[in-house]
């Protein structure tokens, strides 16, 4: 079941909330509105004929105007992946968690929160997964500025060979 077949199926449920398929070869995708995420993923997971039971990854992208979340789903039945994207505003990047639908989402969402600062509502345990708990800021954001020191440890080193 490829992305355009999924799109026509899903379009019946959410006619207004879904964009057209944007072709990019095997990575073709469509955008969806963030507020329908739980219903959309429930349909994709449980509707007979779709059965995308496996969440491969959640990626977060900072493209300066907004944040983009990329969801990659895999279907054991059809043996293919689909990519779905959604846009969140930079000022208020909040979206509902899907960790109750896909258990794998829990850590991926924690990672997106840790490095990109996206807040997932109704997440059971939303805290940093890689950076130290007292780290300030979200390092993969484009406007992230590194501090001079971390707990008194300097974060830069004098270059003995000058600047490169």
């Amino acid at each position: 079941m490829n992305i355009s077949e999924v799109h026509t199926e899903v379009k019946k449920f959410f006619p207004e909330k879904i964009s057209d398929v944007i072709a990019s070869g095997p990575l073709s995708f469509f955008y969806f509105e963030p507020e329908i995420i739980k219903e959309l993923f429930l349909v994709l997971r449980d509707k007979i004929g779709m059965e995308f039971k496996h969440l491969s990854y959640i990626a977060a992208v900072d493209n300066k105007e907004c944040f983009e979340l990329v969801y990659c789903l895999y279907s054991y039945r059809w043996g293919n992946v689909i990519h779905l994207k959604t846009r969140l505003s930079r000022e208020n990047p909040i979206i509902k968690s899907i960790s109750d639908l896909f258990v794998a989402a829990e850590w991926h969402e924690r990672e997106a929160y840790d490095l990109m600062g996206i807040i997932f509502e109704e997440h059971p345990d939303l805290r940093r997964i890689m950076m130290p708990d007292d780290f300030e800021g979200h390092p993969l954001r484009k406007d992230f500025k590194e501090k001079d020191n971390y707990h008194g440890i300097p974060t830069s080193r004098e270059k003995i060979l000058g600047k490169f």
Partner: protein
Amino acid sequence: MDKEVNNNNSVINAHTGDLYLEGDNTGFVLLSKLSFLINLPRANSLWYLLFSPACCGIELMQAGGTRTDLDRFGMVFRSTPRQADVMIVGGTVTYKMAERVKLLYQQMSEPKYVISMGSCANCGGLFDRSYSVLKGVDLIIPVDIYIPGCPPRPEALLDGLMLLQKKIKSEDWGRIVSRHKARIDEL
């Protein structure tokens, strides 16, 4: 053993330049510097801490294998910092890990040595611009030997350990004791 037998029937061992044996057929008198006698076993029983933050640890394991056998230098790993003499920081040290590295170093008993193994531990290496990686382990603990490479081959690590042995053999015991006291005063 290189021997020179002189007319007075005393034997002088000129093998190392530090150790002198004198005597006749009934026995020997051993004359040496105290530092030499203390440093000789210290240099030949370097126990290293079983600790490595990243992928240089694979080369460290390889150096303990049969080809460059660390055991023949009296080097065995210890799982606790309190029994270790030398800490081999093999790999990328993140800020999260840096505080643990410092804690491990503080738990080691004097005299203690640190080998910085690989580019990451030397200066941050590949992760020079990273937000989470310490730019050189010498920013938190004093380092005795730096080994370049990404990762260094076991031979390079062995060379570094032999350099450390050389350094230990050249040390003056009195100075080590005073350095120990100075470090305690710092704490």
